[in-house]
């Protein structure tokens, strides 16, 4: 901003380069800050002993012996890697180049492993990598489906803040239907319908009546909490046996693939809903970016007037998109009552929809990135479970806080200014 455009034009190369690189010092700065924090942690709370990384489960086809590492040395080695990446980032930035994603991934991996080694040091229990990653995939289900729903809606120009309502409504409906029919699949179908129903209400108010989409979304969240809590205490509690004890999805190990060490049990020994998720993410990406339907959807979200001019029915396209978004988010809601627990509880989604919303923005409105963001939050939710088994050296509250702090740093340092679809949140009024 402060740079005078005229000097940029007149000045030789060196001046221009310097102006350009100002933007990316941020990444290097954040990496340095994280490295320093990490080092501070190791120095301030020394935690000696060995860490036992468990890579396979007892029933696995291939058995990998437990890896025992001297925690302190390993943690410092990871710290050295982090420092090296930070230095590389500074060098790259100074040369006017951007820090590549791979360096950031390497940095995060080193930081995570070092942190885990430090956290598990001296514990007699094994730190199960499979449990850590498998749980992350499992816990990420509502976030990923919710984020996909959010992405579809927003790319069509309808802000979907009602993800929370769709998740909760779907969880409630899935609980009742699955309990009555004794079929998890029926529950899943009902969840999809419930998600789409909430989306339909969102559509009627936001698309047909041009009500501010943020208002509708927030209000729907409250409405569904009230509705499900009311019905829960008036209908589900009195007849919990028949209406609120669901049939859950069981894990289905995929032959051969589930025998792959580490990755097998993490990815290929999961319930149906998770396999659906593996299919849903690329499908949504493909549909949005490679099909006519997706192109129209994005056109409606970026410039509805232009889309209308070339003959695209804006209202109909938006309705379709919102309904599909609700249905996808509904799949995520089914997780709560057909995978995680076998009964519905009041407000059991507990703000997951808002986290999914954060994942949408974190993923810059791209389905694949949003899914990975959802996975990150899933990992965060699961981290506490694993660490509480090993017994963590710092208060559990700080452990639980770390993922959110990391997200803050990542959003501030790595993602930066994110640009929503141009017409997101704008009702389209023809004429």
């Amino acid at each position: 901003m402060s740079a005078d455009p005229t000097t940029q034009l007149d000045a030789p190369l060196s001046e221009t380069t310097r102006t350009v690189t100002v933007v990316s010092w941020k990444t290097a700065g954040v990496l340095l800050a994280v490295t320093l924090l990490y080092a501070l942690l190791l120095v301030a709370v020394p935690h000696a002993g060995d860490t036992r990384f468990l890579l396979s489960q007892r029933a696995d086809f291939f058995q990998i012996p437990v890896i025992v590492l001297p925690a302190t040395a390993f943690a410092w080695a990871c710290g050295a890697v982090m420092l090296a990446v930070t230095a590389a980032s500074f060098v790259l930035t100074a040369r006017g180049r951007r820090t590549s994603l791979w360096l950031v991934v390497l940095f995060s991996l080193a930081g995570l492993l070092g942190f885990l080694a430090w956290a598990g040091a001296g514990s007699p229990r094994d730190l199960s990598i499979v449990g850590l990653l498998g749980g992350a995939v499992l816990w990420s289900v509502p976030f990923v489906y919710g984020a996909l729903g959010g992405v579809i809606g927003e790319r069509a120009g309808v802000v979907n803040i009602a993800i929370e309502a769709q998740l909760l409504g779907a969880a409630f409906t899935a609980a009742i239907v699955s309990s009555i029919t004794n079929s998890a699949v029926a529950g899943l179908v009902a969840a999809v319908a419930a998600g789409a129903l909430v989306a339909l209400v969102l559509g009627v108010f936001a698309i047909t009546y041009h009500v501010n989409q943020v208002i509708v979304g927030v209000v729907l969240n409250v409405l569904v909490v009230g509705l499900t809590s009311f019905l829960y205490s008036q209908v589900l509690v009195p007849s919990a046996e028949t209406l609120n004890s669901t049939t859950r999805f069981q894990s289905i190990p995929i032959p051969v693939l589930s025998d792959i060490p580490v990755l097998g049990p993490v990815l290929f020994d999961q319930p149906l809903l998770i396999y659906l998720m593996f299919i849903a993410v690329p499908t949504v990406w493909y549909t949005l970016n490679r099909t006519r339907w997706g192109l129209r959807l994005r056109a409606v979200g970026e410039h509805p007037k232009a889309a209308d001019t070339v003959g695209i029915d804006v209202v109909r396209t938006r309705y379709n998109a919102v309904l599909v978004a609700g249905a996808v988010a509904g799949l995520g809601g089914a997780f709560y009552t057909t995978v995680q627990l076998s009964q519905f509880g009041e407000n059991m989604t507990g703000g997951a929809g808002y986290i999914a919303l954060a994942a949408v923005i974190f993923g810059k409105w791209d389905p694949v990135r949003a899914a990975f963001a959802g996975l990150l939050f899933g990992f965060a939710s699961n981290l506490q479970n694993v660490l509480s088994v090993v017994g963590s050296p710092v208060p559990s509250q700080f452990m639980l806080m770390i993922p959110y702090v990391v997200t803050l740093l990542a959003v501030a340092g790595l993602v930066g200014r994110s640009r929503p679809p141009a017409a997101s949140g704008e009702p389209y009024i023809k004429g």
Partner: protein
Amino acid sequence: MSAPESSPGSNPEQEPGLDPGTAEELEQERARELGSPAGEDMPDTESRLAKALQQTMTSPWTVSVGAVLLAVLAGSVMIAFTDEEVKAASGYFFARPGDTFVALGQAIGGAYSALFRGSVVNVQAPDFVTAIRPLTETLSYATPLIAAGLGVALAFRAGLFNIGGQGQMLVAAAAAGWVGFGVSGVPFPLHLLLAVVAGIAAGAVWAGIAGVLKARTGAHEVIVTIMLNYVAYYLISYFLATPGLLQAPGSSNPKTPPTAESAQLPNLLGDRFNLTWGFVLAVLAVVGVWWLLNRSSTGFAFRAVGENPRAARVAGIDTGRATVNVMLVAGGLVGLAGASQVLGAVTTGFSSDIDAGIGFDAITVALLGGSNPWGVLAAGILFGAFKAGGTTMQAAEGVPSDIVLVVQSLIVLFIAAPPLVRAIFRLPDPNRRRAPKKPKAARNQKEAAA
């Protein structure tokens, strides 16, 4: 800052009356679409009665009443369908249909009269003081809702979605609470003042983080405030579980010691009512925010950034600074809500649920209030009434207070969509006649439905 003066075309300093008017209209055109009496363009030949009727029918108040009616009706249906006695009576409906209707009337009438008893006037009370006690309870519940609602509304006006009310309330409650019981030897008014200021400052700092990150790095405030909610929650949980920080000495529960007498907000109407001076602070905050938004150049910058950040930047407004300032003030207001909780409502010591969902309720309050300070005051009192009445309803009639959430959200939803309400009640559309004469109406969103 020379920003407002340099904006081309209109000078807000010279036309103080006009500018807020237009801005408000943009913000809450759905809430109060009536800029001028609807009948002004009516031909003189029509009788006065018809004119009056037309005016009433097209008034936004009619839509609001309709919205409330619809929401109450929906609530009645829910009560009717889940009431045990109605269910029993409807079992022999064709034998004795009267029983079903009596049961219906008792269930629905009982619930709503309990709601009224709990929130406005207790008609069954033996004396005057007990009779008006519910009204003061309503205002007590409304206090944090108004303050936090203002914080969310102010951010809305600057185009920011402050979803972090929970986190801001928690840190504010922790700061105010810590001063409230941790500092001793300070006399009454000063101690209270310190505690309130600590709460406001803590809320401001917490929201300010989001503002700075947004201004400096472009990090989206929705993500940042949500993440800060979690960080605040775990931070406060840690403080509450750590002796010497917030945990009461000699206790292993994650709960603080009670707030010192000298830091408590005194009761406003004597000891027989729970209403504290916190309500007065909230009303003062309403006036303050109104002044800030409509009469100060800072507020003008806030609104300009909210309406069109690019134009604001071109006009010379430092949008980054405006973003940070908005979040600071918004956080301070939510912080006031947090402080009023621990210094007024819950003085016996608090735990990590001290925010009581107010941070999220505040969003609905701000929306219902059309992001306008006076609207927020009214909406806050309405929601306070629902909270107070819902408790009584649950205790007296066994109807879960969750139904209040349903009625509340339906009211907001219907008020936001006047064409829907008009279509249901077959009310005439006020814009139909005015449209050709008033070009401004073309911008009005209900136009499309006509």
